[in-house]
């Protein structure tokens, strides 16, 4: 078990390292890194200062070494707009984004699981086909478009929710619903197919034969088994939602990492964008390790294979 944890942990570090390396290579492939890290109207002095800072006159392997040494110490460059270490700026926005992501994930489980179970129990009926086809539509809806429509209907026309984020829990509702829309649909479809599979198992027939009622058959015998894949899927969705939050935050002017990145994109503050990508990668691989561990704890079959 400990070897498993160590191995997963080591792999996470390799992934973060690979992402950082890919950025390093890409930036240098485009020609002059100074032009990527600086705005178009940068003064010659600024360019010289950055060249010295990044060591652009050194051979590439020395640059790479400096870059990795910086990464190991948490130095990912300076933000142009905020004139402070980029890591500091990104981390200060992290809690808001994590809050939004967790709210979106929460919604996808709270709404997705019951609807998926309902569809499975009414398999091939009207409810089933309605739930399935609406989840296909929901999965293929651009989140920024959905967000704009939700704002138009629920904040501008009905006035139920504030149109922008960052004003307490109530202002989290629309962004979380927008962000979670895709996962809600995915959780519905996964829960449904997982339930259908479990319900066709022989132990469910046995429970039936023993005279267990529908409630007991579904709640005690089927649901816990059907939820296993849903759980690990939800964990994996964390990363997807974290990425999706960029777009959703842009629509709702939500004060998280996503809005920061959009700001950085418009100001060509590449140190911020690069830091964001590395922080997201680190967060995601960490979550994946946790999800793996949790599924190993919950699923006895997997646990015995690991030890």
């Amino acid at each position: 078990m400990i070897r498993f944890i160590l191995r997963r942990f080591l792999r996470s570090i390799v992934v973060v390292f690979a992402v950082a390396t890919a950025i390093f290579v890409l930036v240098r492939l485009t020609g002059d890194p100074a032009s990527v890290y600086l705005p178009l109207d940068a003064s010659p002095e600024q360019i010289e200062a950055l060249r010295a800072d990044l060591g652009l006159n050194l051979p590439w392997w020395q640059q790479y070494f400096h870059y990795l040494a910086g990464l190991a110490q948490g130095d990912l460059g300076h933000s142009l707009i905020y004139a402070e270490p980029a890591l500091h700026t990104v981390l200060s926005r992290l809690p808001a984004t994590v809050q939004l992501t967790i709210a979106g994930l929460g919604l996808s489980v709270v709404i997705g699981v019951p609807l998926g179970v309902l569809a499975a129990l009414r398999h091939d009926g009207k409810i089933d086909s309605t739930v399935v086809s609406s989840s296909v539509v929901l999965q293929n809806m651009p989140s920024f478009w959905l967000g704009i429509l939700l704002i138009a209907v629920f904040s501008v026309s009905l006035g139920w929710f504030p149109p922008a984020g960052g004003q307490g829990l109530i202002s989290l509702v629309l962004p979380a619903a927008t962000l979670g829309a895709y996962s809600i649909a995915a959780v519905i479809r996964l829960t449904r197919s997982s339930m259908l599979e479990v319900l066709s198992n022989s132990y469910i027939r046995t429970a039936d034969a023993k005279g267990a009622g529908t409630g007991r058959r579904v709640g005690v015998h089927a649901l816990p088994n059907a939820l296993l894949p849903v759980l690990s899927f939800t964990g994996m969705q964390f990363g997807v939602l974290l990425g999706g939050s960029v777009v959703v935050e842009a629509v709702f002017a939500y004060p998280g990492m996503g809005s920061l990145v959009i700001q950085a994109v418009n100001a060509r503050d590449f140190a911020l964008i690069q830091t964001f990508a590395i922080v997201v990668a680190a967060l995601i691989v960490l979550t994946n390790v946790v999800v793996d561990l949790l599924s190993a704890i919950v699923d006895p079959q997997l646990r015995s294979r690991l030890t």
Partner: protein
Amino acid sequence: MMTSNAVEATGRRSRLAAMPWRVRVCVIFLVALVVVALFSLIVSPHDPNAQDLPGRLQGPGAEHWLGTDALGRDVLSRVLAGARVSLLIALAAGGFGALIGVTLALVSGYFGGRTDSIVMGWVEAQTSLPFIVLAITVASILGPNLRNLIIALVVTGWVFYARVVRAEVMSVTTREYIAAAKVGGQTHGSIMLREVLPNVAGAVAVITTQEVPRLILTAAALSFLGLGVQPPTADWGNMIAEGKSYVVVAPWLTLAPGLLIVGFAVAFSTIGDWLRDVFDPQSTAL
């Protein structure tokens, strides 16, 4: 071996022929969209970029079927021009992504060993980063325009082909007819192209139908964020960004491109879900 393959193929053919009506509707919708978008190159109702400031923000009517935008441009013409951009993105990004992904999957799955662990290690590292984050990073390094948008989508998209197709290649490679081809003295390259590739074509088709909606949605999101197709070139994503401020007074600006994105993506996924059932009846829907 051959007989079971033949049975598999006939079963597949009859399942392909029995296309359910909702899949037919999706195919018709997509074909119609492509035909209209291409035809509008010759006979466009209006010039998609012609401004008419006095006639701005008109609602849908006889002259402008889908109304006009804040600069008085015809929304229908712009939506159709946007459809051409989306089709180009889907074709180019999907095509190059498939080419790179399938090639690496063939090499990786066929030879296995160290090649395989390097390619798959890369794939795993890249899939741990959300598609959109990687696309934003690449697009902002390269600079915002249509060509770089397509490059960003190819760089991020090939891994999905590589992952799924490699698994297929590995299972095909263990079949007897591959061993027979090896004994028969065929070169590795010819075995990969003539024996393995045709047998994984179904998987490639299924991934393409799942990949295209994602490409369209991501491209639209990047254009919406200002990292993709730049105005005044019409694109569904930047049209929604431009219409955003007018969503209450002129909802058609937001609804027209948005509904087309949804229609396009839903049609593709519906066909994809059905194709997956045809090629792999055991797999469960996600």
